[in-house]
């Protein structure tokens, strides 16, 4: 079920009412959440529900086993089993074809023709998200940072809670599980925040991102026929499309969770107002970047070793982080570019003792990230290479505009979206704080205006971009 669908507009209030009607019985409330979450997922494809149940069961059981084991070796073995089960699932469904094709291509480089098998596998929605979520649970239990739960309903609900099930935020067990296990209280302020955040999220997604996507899709479908100016505009649009798409999704997820009395962590914090590449990664898809930092980068050694080791760890983390998004080399390159940028920045900042990048710090990260987005969006490596080449050897020709109405709508809405972001940035607050500050009258007026803007400017488009990951 999509957040921007009529179905969700019926689903959410229904769950909300039933949920608070049961607020005297935590067990029943959690069962309702679990059933609702499975329904939410099954509405897309019920067959893949079994994977979530499988993943939940494995980690529920392993979590207890790790905790009960007396020896480090036994704990390690249980953790290995969890890693193999979860990553195996991910490898089978997401990376099987990528591995076999890449292997065959590599062999071809050495002159060996290898027949490879490709399977017609459908990627189960949200697999990358819930796999990471359950993994973080077992790793935390292994690291003694978390006590495993024995409440199976609570654990299964933690894995599948519908606001974050298909595209995150990747909530840690340490934050979410205690909230599921303990009685939630309805908070009026949270209710206000939730409504405001859902409305803004919808605006960001269906109005800004989807309108920008119209132009981006048409240009990126045939980059070979367009000139540099056109491709530059399309790439700039894409950088905002993906931001507003995913930030909008996260807003709806966080807002929906708040209506049910859950506090999710912030997932985006105005990333295009970052003043360095490292800062971007503190603000972009925070739940994933912090996951990669805590469970991959630190596991590889983090910055504890030599400078070379630190850079190696950074590169590996970013490349694997890139591959997490998708099973093509483009995503790996996207990750590698970010790794390289982080390493270079670190070297330069250390060598020249740079602490404050000044106004230039607000420009260069966006410009560099822009190039990396080409690899994220282009349909294949060849197309990405062509676009980057055209952007480097800029031809200064008149850009192709296409549907003027669509481009003007996209730009106007982008202006509104960026103005809100600029206001949040300058007033040093986030969307939640802003929502909380609004009186019921102001909140009602703001939401009504957003509804009007959505009615007038929504664009019908495909799924949320991050669904494919």
């Amino acid at each position, binding site marked *: 079920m999509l957040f921007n669908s*009529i179905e969700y507009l019926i689903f959410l209030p229904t769950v909300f009412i039933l949920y*608070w009607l049961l*607020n005297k019985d935590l067990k029943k409330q959690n069962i309702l959440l679990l059933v609702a979450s499975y329904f939410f997922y099954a509405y897309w494809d019920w067959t893949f529900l079994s994977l979530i149940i499988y993943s939940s069961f494995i980690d529920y059981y392993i979590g207890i086993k790790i905790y009960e084991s007396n020896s480090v070796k036994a704990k390690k073995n249980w953790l290995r089993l969890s890693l193999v089960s979860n990553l195996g699932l991910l490898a089978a469904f997401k990376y099987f074809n990528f591995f076999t094709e890449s292997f065959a291509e590599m062999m071809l480089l050495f002159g060996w023709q290898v027949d490879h098998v490709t399977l017609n596998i459908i990627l189960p929605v949200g697999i990358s998200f819930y796999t990471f979520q359950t993994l973080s649970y077992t790793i935390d239990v292994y690291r003694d940072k978390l006590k495993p739960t024995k409440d199976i309903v609570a654990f299964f609900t933690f894995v599948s809670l519908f606001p974050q099930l298909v595209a995150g935020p990747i909530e840690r067990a340490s934050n979410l599980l205690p909230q599921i296990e303990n009685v939630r209280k*309805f908070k*009026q302020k949270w*209710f*206000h925040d939730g*409504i405001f955040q859902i409305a803004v999220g919808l605006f960001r997604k269906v109005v800004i991102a989807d309108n920008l996507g119209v132009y981006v899709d048409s240009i990126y479908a*045939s980059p*070979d*026929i*367009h*000139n540099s100016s*056109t491709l530059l505009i399309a790439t700039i649009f894409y950088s905002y499309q993906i931001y507003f798409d995913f930030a909008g999704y996260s807003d709806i997820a966080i807002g929906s969770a708040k209506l049910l009395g859950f506090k999710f962590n912030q997932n985006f914090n105005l990333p295009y107002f970052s003043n360095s590449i490292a800062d971007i990664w503190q603000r972009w898809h925070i739940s994933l970047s912090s996951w990669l930092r805590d469970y991959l980068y630190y596991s590889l050694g983090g910055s504890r070793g030599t400078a070379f080791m630190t850079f190696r760890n950074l590169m590996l983390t970013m490349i694997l982080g890139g591959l997490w998004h998708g099973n093509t080399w483009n995503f790996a390159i996207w990750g590698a570019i970010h790794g390289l940028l982080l390493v270079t920045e670190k070297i330069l900042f250390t060598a020249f003792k740079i602490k404050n990048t000044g106004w230039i710090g607000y420009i260069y990260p966006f410009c560099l990230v822009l190039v990396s987005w080409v690899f994220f969006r282009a349909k294949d490596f060849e197309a990405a290479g062509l676009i980057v080449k055209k952007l480097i050897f800029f031809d200064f*020709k*008149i*850009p*192709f505009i296409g549907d003027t*109405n*669509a481009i*003007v*709508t996209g730009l*106007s809405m982008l202006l509104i979206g960026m103005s809100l972001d600029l206001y949040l940035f300058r007033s040093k607050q986030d969307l939640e704080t802003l929502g909380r500050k609004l009186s*019921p*009258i102001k*909140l*009602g*007026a703001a*939401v*009504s*205006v957003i*509804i*009007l803007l959505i*009615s*007038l*400017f*929504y*664009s019908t488009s495909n799924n949320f971009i991050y669904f494919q990951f």
Partner: protein
Amino acid sequence: MDKKQIIKSVKLIAFIIVLSFIIDKAAYFTITKISDTVFSGQAIGKLNHYLSIKDTTKLIVFGSSRANHHIDVKKLKQSSYNMGVDGKFIAYSATLIKMLPKDVKQTVILHVDPNVAYREYYNREETKTLMVKYHTNDIIKKELQRSDLVNPLQEFYWCVDYNGLVLGILKNAIFPKYDLETYYGYDPMEVHSTQKEIFQNILARNDSIKCKTDLKLNPLFNSYLKEIDSFCKRNNKKLITITTPIYIDKCKNDNIALTKVLKDLNIEYHDYSDFFKDNNHVDYWADIAHMSNVASEIFSKALSEDLYIHD
């Protein structure tokens, strides 16, 4: 959740629903007022213009951009209008044709695209722009309700009717593109350098085209075609269907099949796809499917001589 919280929450939701409804209606009537004065622009202006001239015009051309940019209707008849609109196909045309007056003798030239006729997926999505008249025109409302394009929230939030069109309406209200007195719907294409470059790049690509062999007439196309034919026969309209030239038509199967369908329905059809086959020139084209203004003038003159429906 205590009683006080329930009351507060219900009040907030009720306030949002009422206020958003009021704002929506205020915006809707304001936009409608402005929209009704707009007679320029493809989405609204042309529709308003059509509604104002449809009862008194003798010849009207319907169809997509290929009708709009290719047929200089004044070369065919003085009392004429070109109602071709970018990206609009048979469902859009059928809805407009059904609004023509009954028993007034008129000629309807309908541009049909064999490629659309045999498309596997054709969901009449282009009729969405007619939504602007959803709450004010019964024929349009009825036609749109037949499709699944009507948003269930539209009955409550009327502004959805103007989705994606508001900025265009405002722009055309403030800066009208052309003079209503002299405009007759024909928009010849002047090819600018970027477009020329894109077209040349496409030609350089030399993409291979796989022609469909298993051709099935799209059921929606078929149904609208029959409806148009039936409407014209019942209401004193002469229906002529045509296909305007394209740069190269590598697949002729669909043209042949459509010719047969139209012949079986006893509908007059002229296929000009290969009009420039023996005298083609890249400068005649804006892209593969659209002629430049120069070529359109040549074609319109020939069409006029061919159809011979002068005053």
